[in-house]
């Protein structure tokens, strides 16, 4: 059976794949469907949903099109989630490989730094980082990665410790390869699978952290974010609760899609591994 068909066998994985595909489609067609600035005024303020078919989800406090904002918000969520997770996995893999392969003092120092990062609540760290450097998309990505690389680093280190003693590493040493070259060309690629297995959890955490940051007003001010929309709607929570509720539902479905698809992938590869 092909991996794809095995993946699609569990209903959870199918649901996850559909949710993710819908999100990616939203992000991709947002500029085509809603060209122009999504933060521009499109109609009367506080129009309820399902009243005017040119503005299906109504408008917010300033008369901006909620549906357009929702589509453009998907772009931000997805971009930040993927970029922050990629950065966290890359930093984690490099630090973990260096610590595990070098051992000794290098290992000790790197792991104490990892401990320190895990001791500070990652959200507080992200808050401090963004407030120091200033909110922009790149900074938000960096702030989130700063608090999430520690998990992958620990996993990578544990994996490297077991790989370090294998025969192919010994033979690479015997032919006189530079230790750094062994670490990054022989050991790191083989230590990656368990690190990559964490990616769905990390992407999900990154999306949620980005939403929380922009909810507190620390997102990129030039971008529509779901967290920012929820915060916007909060001012009129009593009279127009849908303004906060709708982008929240989008967030939940996105994160759920990432989790479900991730579990499906892990299950597929686990089955394949046990078969081989």
């Amino acid at each position: 059976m092909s991996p794809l068909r095995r993946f699609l066998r569990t209903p959870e994985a199918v649901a996850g794949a559909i949710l993710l595909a819908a999100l990616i489609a939203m992000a991709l067609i947002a500029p085509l469907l809603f060209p122009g600035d999504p933060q521009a005024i499109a109609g009367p303020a506080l129009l309820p949903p399902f009243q005017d078919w040119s503005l299906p989800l109504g408008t917010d406090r300033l008369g901006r099109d909620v549906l357009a904002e929702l589509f453009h918000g998907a772009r931000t969520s997805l971009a930040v989630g993927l970029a922050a997770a990629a950065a966290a996995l890359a930093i984690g893999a490099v630090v973990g490989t260096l610590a595990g392969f070098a051992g000794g003092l290098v290992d000790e120092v790197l792991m104490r730094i990892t401990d320190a990062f895990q001791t500070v609540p990652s959200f507080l760290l992200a808050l401090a980082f963004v407030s120091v450097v200033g909110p922009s998309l790149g900074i938000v990505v960096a702030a989130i990665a700063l608090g999430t690389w520690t998990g992958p680093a620990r996993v990578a280190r544990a994996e490297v410790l077991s790989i370090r003693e294998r025969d192919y590493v010994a033979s690479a040493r015997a032919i006189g390869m530079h230790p750094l070259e062994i670490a990054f060309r022989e050991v790191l690629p083989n230590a990656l699978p368990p690190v990559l297995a964490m990616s769905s959890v990390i992407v999900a955490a990154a999306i949620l952290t980005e939403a929380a940051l922009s909810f507190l007003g620390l997102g990129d001010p030039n971008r529509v974010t779901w967290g920012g929309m929820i915060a916007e709607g909060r001012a009129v929570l009593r009279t127009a609760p849908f303004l906060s509720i709708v982008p929240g539902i989008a967030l939940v479905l996105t994160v759920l899609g990432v989790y479900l698809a991730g579990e499906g992938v892990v299950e597929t590869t686990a089955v394949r591994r046990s078969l081989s």
Partner: protein
Amino acid sequence: MTRALILLRRRLVGSVFVLLIVVIGTFLLLEAAPGDAVDAYIVSTGGDAGMIEMLRHRWGLDQSELTRLANYLWALLHLDLGQSVTFSRPIRDLILERLPNTLLLMVSATALSFGLGSALGIYAGARPGSARDRFLSIGSLALYAVPGFWLGLVLIVVFAVDLRWLPIGGIETLASDKTGLDRAADIAIHLILPVAALGFIYLALYLRMMRAGMAEAWRQDFVLAARARGLSRRRVVLAHVARNALLPLVTMLGLQSAQMLGGSVVIESVFSVPGLGRLAQEAVASRDTPLLLGIILTSAVLVVVINLLVDIAYAFLDPRVGAGEAGA
């Protein structure tokens, strides 16, 4: 007892190093911020160049970075976190004033997520693969996908705005002059929604861990032996399967404390709870870097202490831990 003490001592030494890295790292990060405490002060009060010069000198901001770091560390040894610019009060007092609210929120939310999460996990894991197991495991995944601050807003809309059952925010009714039990009840009512918003998210984590641990335990020989001895299913589940799956959850309790603390920043903002998280937000908004530094440091100490307590609890719960070290 000695075993726990040895463990404690070893952990304490490690923790001091880790906290030192945290202090230095955070200090340097916040140093990189454009503008300093004086700029923040001048923005809020106004003042001329001479006054700026005078304040910089008085607060020691005209010294080199290293000197100031050394001064900061020296002050820390005396438990002095410095002076808040925006509040014009010692940072230690501000933090100690806000800390109890955050602790109350965290402890209640942890009790909710750990208690209900592990109970539901046992319920699901008692019959692996059953309908209720599948329902709970998917339901918990959905819950885990919910942003806490959004859940908080939804709870406010339903229970405070529509039904008017619970207060919309704050930690207690203002200027109500309540004392003793009345005041405790008032605070408890105010805490229901924030605790639910913070606790329900992490409930899913404990539920899933419990379930996974039980699935593992079902395959062990001692469970087979217990069943072969003819013990009732209830007894096998509770005394053998669940009991063995519970230990990793205790470790998780420590690991989650940092997450919980981070989560309470946003929850406190949603429910206007005057805690450490709100203070952090106020510090960010007014660019009060010494205050932010103090809060981050306090949180780190809190996380270290919680993890120490969890380690000690673990040593008591699992007799295998530290047995080898005690002999050495």
